[in-house]
């Protein structure tokens, strides 16, 4: 009876394509080697030994020797800015950006203008997505009306209308009592509650991580405990109520420890880490580049290492970009005045591949898996490379080096913290829900 969680414009023709001699890597189906992959009418029809499959007459053929084919990525945390902030991003540019980053589905956060906190608004944004979204999008409405933290949204009706979960992302649920009620109500309607963890009395007017760098720059810091005390608190509330919570954009090692503790106790709790927190530290803020200003802030090398270890061990369940576009004029101001956020969809795979997989810190298997592990946390289907599955595929050239921002972005905004860096690993083709959602200009087609 409830509406499907994902919606997009599916009028694009279903893909018919033979990808030949490509290195298929899908840790979930234990594929890791050269194969031919045939997609017929948007579905994976066959996965065969390299050079064995022949293309039907109407199918496109790609010679993909040396390239990699992964199950496409799923991002449970993006800001598409519609409605009300379309000067930063909209459903079309945001999903185009996601497709260019190899994603076949994303979940949009509700801190728009107005905030997404009622069923009529959810219906209208889903209608817009059915027209404008290039890949499937799910929506995660607010836990509290207007994200004000004082009254619950009509969670049950929102679930019926396709809410993928609930969050006040951008703000914490400050009141412990309010979160408790939301978790009690969750028994009626389901839907994981995703939490932006921050104690505002500890964050104050902070603009970056509180530590050596902030002390030297004279910028008010956001201490790591601002996040960690809320993770610990909310894990206790979730444990008490038996509710399910998901911790967004983990940044501090103390938070990882609190998450690990809670998991050990059997709490229904999961967590995500962003590419920027996995790849960068507060040292990147020394130049006061506003693209490196985000909330939670880039933290220390020890925090980064704890996140990496958490991702490896599974304490951190998945990678999520927290793609947060802002217009140029909004970011072209002194650091302390700039809004928080970096874009991330187009650099998610390449940044982690370059900084963590190539040097041998993480395996490619793990990266590929964690880039879609967010799906199951929000009851979305997990992409798989196997016959009979809908085609959700990402073709990547791992060797290809590119300079972030050269030639612009698919996103409407350019506030990417990796801008100007040379990364390895370029997405060449994305198939989302059976249709080609992105194709790199460099991609040669045999026929």
């Amino acid at each position, binding site marked *: 009876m409830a509406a499907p969680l994902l919606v997009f414009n599916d009028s694009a023709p279903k893909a018919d394509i033979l990808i030949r001699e490509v290195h298929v890597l899908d840790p979930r189906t234990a594929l890791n080697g050269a194969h031919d992959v045939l997609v017929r009418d948007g579905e994976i029809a066959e996965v065969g030994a390299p050079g064995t499959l022949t293309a039907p007459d109407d199918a496109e053929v790609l010679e993909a020797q040396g390239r990699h084919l992964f199950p496409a990525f799923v991002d449970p945390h993006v800001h598409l800015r519609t409605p009300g902030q379309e000067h930063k991003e909209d459903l079309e540019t945001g999903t185009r950006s996601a497709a260019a980053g190899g994603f076949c589905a994303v979940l949009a956060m509700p801190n728009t203008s107005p905030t997404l906190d009622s069923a009529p608004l959810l219906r209208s944004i889903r209608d817009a997505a059915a027209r404008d979204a290039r890949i499937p999008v799910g929506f995660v409405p607010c836990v509290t009306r207007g994200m004000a933290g004082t009254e619950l949204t009509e969670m049950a009706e929102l679930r019926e209308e396709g809410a993928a979960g609930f969050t006040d992302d951008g703000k914490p649920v400050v009141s412990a009592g309010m979160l408790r009620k939301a978790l009690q109500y969750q028994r009626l309607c389901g839907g994981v509650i995703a939490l932006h963890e921050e104690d505002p009395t500890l964050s104050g007017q902070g603009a970056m991580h*509180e*530590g*050596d*760098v*902030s*002390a*030297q*720059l*004279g*910028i*008010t*810091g956001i*201490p790591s405990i601002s996040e960690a005390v809320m993770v610990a608190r909310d894990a206790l509330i979730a444990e008490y109520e038996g509710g399910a919570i998901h911790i967004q954009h983990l940044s501090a090692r103390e938070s990882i420890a609190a998450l690990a503790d809670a998991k050990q106790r059997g709490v229904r709790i999961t967590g995500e880490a962003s590419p920027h927190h996995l790849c960068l530290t507060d040292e990147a803020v020394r130049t*006061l580049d506003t693209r490196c200003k985000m909330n939670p802030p880039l933290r220390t090398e020890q925090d980064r290492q704890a996140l990496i270890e958490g991702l490896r061990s599974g304490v951190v369940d998945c990678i999520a970009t927290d793609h947060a576009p802002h217009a140029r*004029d909004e970011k*072209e*101001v*002194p*650091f*302390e*005045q700039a809004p928080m956020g970096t874009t991330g969809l187009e650099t998610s795979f390449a940044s982690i591949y370059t900084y963590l997989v190539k040097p041998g810190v993480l395996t490619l298997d793990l990266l590929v898996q964690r880039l879609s592990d967010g799906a199951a946390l929000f009851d979305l289907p997990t992409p798989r490379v196997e016959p009979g599955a809908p085609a959700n595929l990402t073709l990547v050239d791992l060797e290809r080096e590119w300079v972030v921002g050269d030639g612009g972005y698919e996103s409407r905004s350019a506030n990417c913290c990796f801008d100007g860096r040379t990364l390895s690993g370029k997405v060449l083709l994305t198939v989302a829900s059976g249709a080609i959602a992105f194709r790199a200009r460099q991609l040669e087609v045999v026929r």
Partner: protein
Amino acid sequence: MKHMLSVEDLDRADIERICDRAASFAEVADREIKKVPALRGRTVLNLFYEASTRTRSSFELAAKRLSADVVNFSASGSSVEKGESLKDTILTLGAHKPDAIVIRTPWAGAAELVSRWTPAAIVNAGDGKHEHPTQALLDVHTLRDRLGALDGLDIWIVGDVLHSRVARSDIMAFQKMGAKVTLAGPPTLIPRGIETMGCEVRYTLDDLGQADVVYALRMQNERMEQSWIPSIREYAAWYQVNGRRLSPKQILMHPGPVNRGVELSAEVVDSPQAVITAQVAAGVVVRMAVLYEVLAHVPSGARAPEGVPA
């Protein structure tokens, strides 16, 4: 040197060169006509986003004594209050072709940011809690004038380090000149991690006697509103530099304006150890030297921002 943005950019030789030149400008103030023609025909624009009397008048005097033309622009009562962005303000004022812009803002890094938007030389007159490089230079100049050198000096900076751009610039400048720096103040007003700048941290003035120089920072009355300190009374009881705590052989400094009876007692302000008015006088000559440093070697109108054709 193209700009004066931060002490971090300077090495000891830069600091000494500027202070030496400041010393050579000192006699100008004693002339009947207090002017030299060094920057005749140049335009210096004072752009202040924060209230300031002494720094701004000090820069104004410095520019005028070098025969430059000075325009003052303050954010209050201007287009800034109508919502003009910093960038647009700079582009607009830049159209008047100033040779130098002296800028004070409440935002860290703003002076450096502005230097990318205009061909003018930028002099940082304070950017948020980040830096106040000309204050540090005049403090070094004052101490060199008094003591000859800073090598081996034990300098204590006392008070609200957390909110102080002066403290950050002074820590670096004093250390570059060979002094050892100790910070002392209430634990709530000493930023976590500041010891990584190479200074010691104390929470009492018990060992203040070991200092050669005591540098007191201004304690703002409104700091108690956010509970940084319980009360001005308690602050004064623990951290006021007074006749009981200051020994006669120590030098006392303060960036001004002083809160008498709060961070300093009246008797030490008026004592011969206090070099506070010497600091103010040094402000003019050091700022003359700084303006000279960034302007004298380039012909007027010859500047172009990086990457932009002249």
